[in-house]
């Protein structure tokens, strides 16, 4: 049975278990369910859970582990002579899998008996021709064919074992839970413990995600640094990857582009966002606020690809034709300025909503105190509200900076792909994120430094944004405690 059908069988058994468990609870209570510890449904759930969970767990783990184990076993059996180089092993493994699948198809169509499949050799041309007539061509490589046969038989055995094991577990759980269905059995508590376990398991996904991110970044970055010296990566000033070899993969030009664009984005978005937030929370009438606030939130809801296209099609040419070319500063549509400006627009709602929260957290009594002394609203804001809100605003700016550094689509479409270190904001430059996309889209060879460098870039990006986020969180949390 295939795992899917095993799963369906288990679930059907579990459903049956629910019905029977409930009925049994009714019968052991001799018609008076008040004698039961829990309501009958809990006994039903109890049986269903004991039927399904252990066997499904085994099934899941088996399905995840089987390919790894089988691949290792088969890989060890392929003679070294059949493997030309390290990369070829992967190709051969997929050939083995393909061949095994083809044989399985042939058996399913009745073109081969199981016995014939087991004794298949490349010499048996009659049989192979018969298959070729039906559009099933098998490899003539004897080593691969042999391995494919092994692969098939191991998988068949494994599948049989799995079916037996999981159905046995399901039935065992069913029987055990049924036997324990007695009036004094605390079914509700057991079921609730299961639910609690499920809740905890779900909560752990957040940790698992972080661990997954860190592991995948660190593991492949480690591979990269085996192939390419880390000093050259972190301190290299030249980025010229070439898949033919002899790449120079210095991160500094990318870092420069990233920081330059982020700086421009922040220079634009922080004043605009902050002043917009100040105006909305301190001056605007409820009616104006009711109109403007949702509109600014629309800016926040627009996907970054839209901003990217806006940069590419509209803002880039506009800046080139009206500013860069007349001033003789360059003639590239994609530029640091384009990407920075559009990213700044994207960040306006981010900065303004964060600042809004923070400004509103400043107690009204401070404003009253200042106004009561005869200061104007703007003096109150500048001298009392903003200094009081400063830590929170710094936190907001750090979060915005983290956003800017990690932003991808706007720079992919607006900044260009030229890795260079220049002060002229009207020139095309590139960023860490652009190069991650560049090195990882298309066909990847996970043995070459040109692909693996993306993971080292990703790790750098992750560490940078993590540091900013943590700093911001700590600052904002401290700030909130101050006024609570």
């Amino acid at each position: 049975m295939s795992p899917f059908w095993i799963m369906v069988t288990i679930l059907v058994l579990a459903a049956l278990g629910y019905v029977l468990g409930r009925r049994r609870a009714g019968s052991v209570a001799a018609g008076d369910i008040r004698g039961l510890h829990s309501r009958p449904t809990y006994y039903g759930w109890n049986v269903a859970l004991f039927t399904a969970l252990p066997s499904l767990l085994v099934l899941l783990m088996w399905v995840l582990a089987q390919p790894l184990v089988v691949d290792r076993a088969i890989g060890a059996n392929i003679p070294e002579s059949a493997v030309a180089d390290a990369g070829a092993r992967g190709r051969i493994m997929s050939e083995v899998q393909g061949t095994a699948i083809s044989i399985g198809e042939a058996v399913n169509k009745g073109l081969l008996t199981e016995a014939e499949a087991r004794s298949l050799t490349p010499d048996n041309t009659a049989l192979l021709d018969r298959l070729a007539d039906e559009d099933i061509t098998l490899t003539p490589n004897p080593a691969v064919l042999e391995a494919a046969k092994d692969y098939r038989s191991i998988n068949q055995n494994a599948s049989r074992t799995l079916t037996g094991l999981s159905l046995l577990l399901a039935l065992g759980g069913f029987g055990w839970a049924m036997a324990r269905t007695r009036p004094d059995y605390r079914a509700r508590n057991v079921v609730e413990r299961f639910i609690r376990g499920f809740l905890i398991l779900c909560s752990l996904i957040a940790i698992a995600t972080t661990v997954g991110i860190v592991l995948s970044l660190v593991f492949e970055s480690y591979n990269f640094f085996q192939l390419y010296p880390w000093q050259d990566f972190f301190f290299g000033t030249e980025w010229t990857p070439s898949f033919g070899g002899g790449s120079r993969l210095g991160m500094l030009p990318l870092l420069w582009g990233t920081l330059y664009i982020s700086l421009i984005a922040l220079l634009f978005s922080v004043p605009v966002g902050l002043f917009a937030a100040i105006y909305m929370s301190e001056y605007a009438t409820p009616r104006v606020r009711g109109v403007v606030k949702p509109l600014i939130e629309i800016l926040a809801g627009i996907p970054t690809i839209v901003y990217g296209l806006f940069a590419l099609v509209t803002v880039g040419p506009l800046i080139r034709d009206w500013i860069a070319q007349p001033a003789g500063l360059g003639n590239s549509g994609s530029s640091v300025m384009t990407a920075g400006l559009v990213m700044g627009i994207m960040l306006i709602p981010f900065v303004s909503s964060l600042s809004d929260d923070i400004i509103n957290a400043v107690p009204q009594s401070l404003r009253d105190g200042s106004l009561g002394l005869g200061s104007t609203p703007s003096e109150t804001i500048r001298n009392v509200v903003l200094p009081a809100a400063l830590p929170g605003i710094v936190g907001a700016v750090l979060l915005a900076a983290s956003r800017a550094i990690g932003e991808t689509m706007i720079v992919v479409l607006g900044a260009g792909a030229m890795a260079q270190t220049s002060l002229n904001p009207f020139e095309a430059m590139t960023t860490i994120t652009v190069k991650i996309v560049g090195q990882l889209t298309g066909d990847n060879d996970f043995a070459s430094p040109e692909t693996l460098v993306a993971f080292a870039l990703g790790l750098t990006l992750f560490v940078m944004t993590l540091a900013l986020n943590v700093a911001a969180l700590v600052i904002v949390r401290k700030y909130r405690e101050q006024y609570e």
Partner: protein
Amino acid sequence: MNDMRLAERTVDTKGKPIKFSCRNVQVFYGDKHAIKDVDVDLEDKTVTAFIGPSGCGKSTFLRCLNRMNDTIDVARVDGKLMLDGEDIYDRRVDPVQLRARVGMVFQKPNPFPKSIYDNVAYGPRIHGLARNKAELDGIVEKALRGAALWNEVKDRLGESGTGLSGGQQQRLCIARAVATSPEVLLMDEPCSALDPIATSQVEDLIDQLREDFSVVIVTHSMQQAARVSQKTAFFHLGNLVEYGTTDDIFTRPQDPRTESYISGKIG
């Protein structure tokens, strides 16, 4: 505090010039008519107490006197409020200038999260009262002395104002208000957040402030009104029920509502 003090203080209430003259004052909060037809004359160099049950409008009326109600969108004030003969709700009046002359101390101590010095210097700085640092230092010292706080804080003027105790914070706020040299000082239940010892310190201070300012204090405590004020106004449901010397209000109330309130029947 005893009745002797009450008697002492009522001596010098005669013949003071009028500082604030209010006629036919109405305040609306949206649809709610919060203050109805209030007529009152507040004397200079006198402590006037506003008393009454919660929600009677005493704080609302107090906030009219320096136009703090302007900061509330839905509030609307009608009628004439004359400070030294000038209508403070005249279109030409800048509330900023008004508030420099009519200072305010709030219910909860609200020192700015700045140093003690900067707290006191805040008002003089924005109003440009000092020509140089030395003058500013002088104003700050004078104000802190005026608020009876100088001796406690003179060695730590650079420390944050929020680090002081509750009573000290409130006296700092009074010093802050005094530093802009207002003519009238409005106090909105200045002791309600303080313990009895701090309360008594602030009350002593209020008595001293009377030398230089006209003080209007809102209080929910009749004892406090009796202790610190020379004139008392009783508010009930938005109306000014009775206004007279503190002595008269507490010993010979004219209106039955005042009498019920004084004797604790309503409150």
